[in-house]
């Protein structure tokens, strides 16, 4: 029997759904825009705080409503980033690292903007928004299957993740716009031929990427015991690790990455703790070690790639 069964299994699936919600949009945004977006964590956190503010200030207890609002917030943030920052930089021919540094600047900015918003909200409502409890939504059911009770957040994250996967599949495979989007990632030059301007596709990509990540954040509010303005940042390296397993381009491999990392983080660490006495505090260490191993063993496919340099000697 697996250690921590059945909670580690439940958590494993739970995290799997969340990583799908957080990492698939990241992969999508990189493969279509080639921007390594540090500010991705902001989409997630702002999604959470959209739900938190709706709950704390307006008393909203409907998760679909919170998720819809989060989509708008995250999507428009991402769109704004692109129009105001990334596109002008690319027009000017800035290098990918420079664009990445700009996204780092955005990340810092949004992060502390949120703290400021939380301060202001605290001033008006006298509620603590810097550390907010789990939200109980009224319109998400708990499910009972074969004696197991699946919590509200499990049901919500499962539905959201499944919905995302199905919608992405249908969109990318079955619609003209979706096919154009795939073409952009495969061959930007060729994509121009399809008749849909690259700009439109990139904008749409950002809207979807930011929006979906924010929806993930909104769903997170009924799972995590505490929501802080750091919640998104604290998991961003994990989210990136998942996407790196997918080489930042393959959505299917990103899904596998989500499976692998959530397995390591839940079942893996519990097993190591129980059988080998490895402290639980090594959980993030494991994730980072996995990230490094992946980066070194199999460099991301979608990146400009390493040098055409071979370290081995010719025999």
């Amino acid at each position: 029997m697996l250690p921590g069964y059945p909670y580690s299994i439940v958590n494993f699936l739970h995290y799997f759904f969340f990583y799908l919600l957080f990492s698939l949009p990241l992969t999508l945004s990189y493969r279509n825009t080639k921007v390594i977006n540090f500010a991705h964590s902001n989409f997630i956190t702002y999604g959470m705080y959209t739900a938190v503010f709706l709950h704390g200030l307006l008393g909203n207890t409907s998760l679909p409503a919170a998720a819809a609002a989060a989509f708008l917030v995250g999507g428009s943030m991402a769109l704004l980033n692109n129009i105001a920052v990334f596109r002008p930089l690319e027009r000017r021919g800035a290098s990918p690292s420079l664009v990445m540094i700009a996204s780092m600047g955005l990340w810092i900015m949004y992060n502390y903007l949120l703290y400021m918003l939380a301060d202001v909200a605290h001033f008006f409502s006298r509620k603590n928004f810097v550390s907010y409890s789990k939200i109980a939504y009224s319109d998400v059911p708990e499910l009972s299957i074969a004696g197991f009770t699946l919590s509200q957040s499990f049901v919500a994250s499962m539905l959201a993740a499944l919905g995302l996967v199905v919608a992405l599949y249908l969109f990318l495979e079955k619609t003209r716009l979706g096919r154009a989007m795939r073409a952009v990632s495969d061959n930007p030059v060729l994509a121009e031929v399809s008749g849909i301007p690259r700009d439109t596709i990139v904008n749409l990509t950002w809207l979807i990427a930011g929006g979906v990540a924010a929806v993930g954040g909104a769903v997170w509010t009924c799972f995590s015991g505490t929501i802080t303005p750091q919640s998104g940042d604290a998991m961003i390296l994990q989210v990136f690790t998942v996407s790196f397993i997918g080489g930042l381009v393959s959505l299917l491999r990103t899904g596998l990455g989500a499976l692998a990392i959530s397995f390591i983080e839940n079942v893996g660490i519990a097993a190591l703790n129980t059988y080998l006495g490895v402290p639980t505090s090594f959980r993030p260490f494991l994730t980072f070690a996995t990230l490094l191993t992946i980066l070194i063993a199999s460099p991301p496919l979608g990146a400009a790639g390493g040098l055409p340099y071979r370290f081995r000697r010719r025999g």
Partner: protein
Amino acid sequence: MTSPSQAAVKRAFDAKLAAVAIIALVIGIAIGFAAAGAFQPTAGGQAAQPQPGAPAGGQAAQPKKTYTIGFTLPLSGELSSIGKIWEKVVYLAIEDLNREVQAYGFNVEFKAVILDDATSEEKALQNVQTFAQQGIKVVIGPAASSQVKAVKSFVDSNKIVLISPSSTAPTLAIPNDFIFRTVGSDAGQAKVLATLARQEGARKVIVFHRNDEYGNAFAGFFERYFKELGGTAVKMPYQTGLSDYAAEVASLASRVQAEGADAVVLISFDTDGGNILSHAAESPVLTKVRWFISEGPHGAAELKSPTVGEFAAKVRLLGTRPLFIANPLYEDFKARLKEKYGVDASVFCDTLYDAVKLAGWAILRAGAYDGEAIRKALVEVAKNYYGPSGWTIFDENGDKANQDYGVWAIVKTPQGYDFKDVGVYERGSIVFLEKPYP
């Protein structure tokens, strides 16, 4: 390509090179000078800078002697939520102190210079250096033990008396230094928590603790005392700063099952503690064992949520914290802080208030504004002082010798769940004042 011109240009290069660093520094110095000039008056609170400790001059008929106490507080950064309240406590304490000493007939006035250290080691040291340059010999703060460590060498060698109201790390329990702490070290509380757990019937506990200095030291002492009392403790650290602790809680559940433990001891701060408890509430394994908690999560909003409240009732959750229960001075202090500044007293507000009062009286008793003298006086003054935090006598390490501890629980009130102090630690055992859970 004549060589003279070459050499000249080369010389110019080298000269420029050497000059650049100097120029940059000179510019920096100029700016720094301007800044110092611009801010000194506001920082000192008075346009003409009197030497602290020295009489402000003989020009006025009855000049008041002004003493300055330096404060380095976490007004921003990690601990800013309590830092902002502390600032008000300082104002209140300085007012009270001035009123008291003048009532006793001393013609003196105390002033507070507050600097923000953003919970950072570097800034705490810079602030203490700034105080030292102004001749200030008594500094109150900084908040975190890691910051106290960073300023320790400086205050010891400059003979500045430093009183921290909230540092509890046992590694700082060092005799004969200039560091005083108006709060007991974690070792004391660990003993109380161990007593509580044992008295409540726990035999084998999992100590689930933060993997930082606070958590590790606390857990270490807990393990030692719990063993002395005849129990078994298994330490289990978790990494801090994560977005969520569901995986850690799952590991904890698995460990509790594997070890057959009958209680969990949680040593955490507020955010992580709230998170862990809310996940534990969903685990059938963890709702079957007892829970004992350190002072960290006390006061956190997350613990007042219905989920955690119900969980607390199920596991009959009990916590400890430094507190002198039913102290009329504390109640009075709390009420006046609320009335005057509109803030609720949080952790270490009482110890900060007492630190200010002790510092003031020690300066007067020392007779000279001199670190060595104040240090000696402080020890004496503390023996005769009783404040909101109780008796303040220092032990040989300069830490509070007789820290009192209370036991808290989460109880149901008409407004929802809330914290309540339900017991005290007295002569080696816990005395319950009321039954927290039916």
